[in-house]
């Protein structure tokens, strides 16, 4: 954690705040609730109490504005900088500004930024905290969308704020979950954005170790081509096979896409759009190179899946027909990338159309006119045109074992 130079702080326990205006993106009551819950996070671990004023001068003034808004730090349109806040002090000191050009939401799964999470971070500045370089801490400068149910401060955040204000009068110095809104937020797996921490724990959990390249039992969660290369995914790990270098490169998902670090269920490339689509549980993202496209994640139902489909096992795009095949259990769907719609007559049984494939598909790849369907520690080479099985190989055969 860090503090501002000379560690300015409020020299009183009763700190007032006022909401000067509202974003049209959310209901006013939802804005008020997000702000109140954000303050509650900090009051639960300090002696501070936050009192809302509806008029007059408050210590912490909260407002939404876009572009230039009267201070030296103009906002920058959608994305980029989301908000900023000033350390404790007179006048603008303590104030928190939120970029109105962002899409503010009470959710964490759809396009936009969760106001509670961003407000909790900014109010940390309003109370005197600087940024933390601890991945997973609330005061880490990068936005990390997390499940806000049972949200807890990281121990680093608690250590930081208590270095300024001390612990609460009656409670210990351990993190307490915030009392979250009772509305059911759309489903998001708690671990999907940050492999290092579950929302209910204050210390990072250890991710599973990277499997050995030539482990005969090696399996993959998802595989995709990307600009001539092939990426194999397992948990948070990536194996990268490229025609530009000889050896298999070891990476983590977070080294390419930090906000998608939790792993994938399925992935495929649409080469004519220079896009890769990633799937995790009931959401998917479109990515161009390193950039996640605005408006994502979206629910998989927006592709045409029925509501009872909660995740995809595998996906592969056929460049010749512009169709994408999605595998779920023993069935598959065909999606027309040109019309962006599911084809009629699906789902169909995998075994009925892909001769010799009698099981589920964990991951899939198209390369050199063949499909490769991975199941367990084996994979199956299938002719794209005839959809007939050609041969069976070990899953790690791509790594020159």
């Amino acid at each position: 954690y860090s503090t501002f130079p000379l560690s300015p702080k409020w020299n009183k326990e009763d700190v007032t705040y006022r909401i000067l205006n509202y974003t049209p993106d959310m209901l006013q009551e939802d804005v008020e609730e997000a702000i109140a819950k954000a303050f509650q996070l900090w009051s639960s671990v300090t002696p501070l109490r936050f009192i809302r004023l509806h008029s007059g001068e408050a210590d912490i003034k909260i407002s939404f504005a876009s572009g230039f808004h009267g201070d030296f730090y103009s906002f920058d349109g959608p994305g980029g900088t989301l908000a900023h806040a000033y350390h404790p002090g007179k006048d603008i000191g303590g104030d928190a500004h939120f970029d109105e050009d962002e899409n503010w939401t009470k959710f964490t799964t759809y396009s936009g930024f969760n106001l509670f999470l961003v407000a909790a971070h900014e109010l940390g500045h309003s109370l005197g905290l600087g940024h933390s370089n601890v991945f997973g801490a609330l005061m880490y400068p990068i936005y990390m969308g997390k499940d806000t149910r049972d949200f807890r401060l990281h121990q680093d955040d608690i250590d930081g704020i208590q270095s300024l204000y001390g612990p609460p009068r009656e409670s210990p110095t351990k993190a307490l979950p915030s009392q979250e809104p009772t509305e059911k937020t759309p489903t998001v797996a708690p671990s999907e954005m940050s492999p290092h921490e579950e929302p209910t724990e204050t210390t990072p959990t250890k991710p599973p170790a990277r499997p050995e390249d030539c482990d005969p039992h090696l399996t993959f969660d998802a595989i995709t081509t990307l600009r001539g290369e092939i990426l194999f995914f397992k948990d948070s790990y990536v194996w990268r096979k490229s025609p530009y270098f000889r050896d298999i490169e070891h990476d983590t998902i977070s080294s390419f896409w930090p906000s998608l670090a939790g792993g994938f269920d399925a992935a495929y490339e649409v080469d004519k759009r220079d896009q890769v689509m990633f799937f995790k549980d009931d959401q998917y993202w479109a990515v161009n190179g390193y950039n996640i496209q605005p408006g994502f994640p979206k629910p998989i139902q927006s592709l045409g899946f029925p509501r009872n489909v909660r995740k995809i096992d595998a996906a592969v795009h056929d460049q010749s027909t512009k169709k994408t095949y999605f595998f779920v259990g023993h069935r598959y769907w065909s999606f027309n990338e040109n019309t962006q719609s599911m084809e009629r007559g699906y789902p169909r049984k995998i075994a009925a159309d892909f001769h010799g494939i009698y099981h589920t598909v964990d991951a899939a790849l198209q390369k050199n006119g063949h499909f490769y369907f991975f199941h367990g520690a084996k994979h199956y080479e299938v002719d794209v045109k005839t959809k007939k099985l050609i041969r069976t190989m070990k899953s790690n055969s791509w790594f020159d074992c």
Partner: protein
Amino acid sequence: LPVIPEKEKEDMQFAQKYLENFYDFKEEKSSLFKSKDLNPMSKKIQEMQSFFGLEVTGQLNSQTLNMMKQPRCGIPDVRS
């Protein structure tokens, strides 16, 4: 990942702005003395890479650039 060459200048400008905003980078405009450092941003890139736990190379590689493009708070990570 494979790079589209004409974007490199754009990326450098983006990185410079990022470092000015969040890492107190100041470009030397007119100096009587030639800078010994041919890449004046290198030290600030190192500082940023160290902050985020990236490999500290001082070079604007893809991981570093990608980290710079993530949505974030407007407060600097380091301050003068």
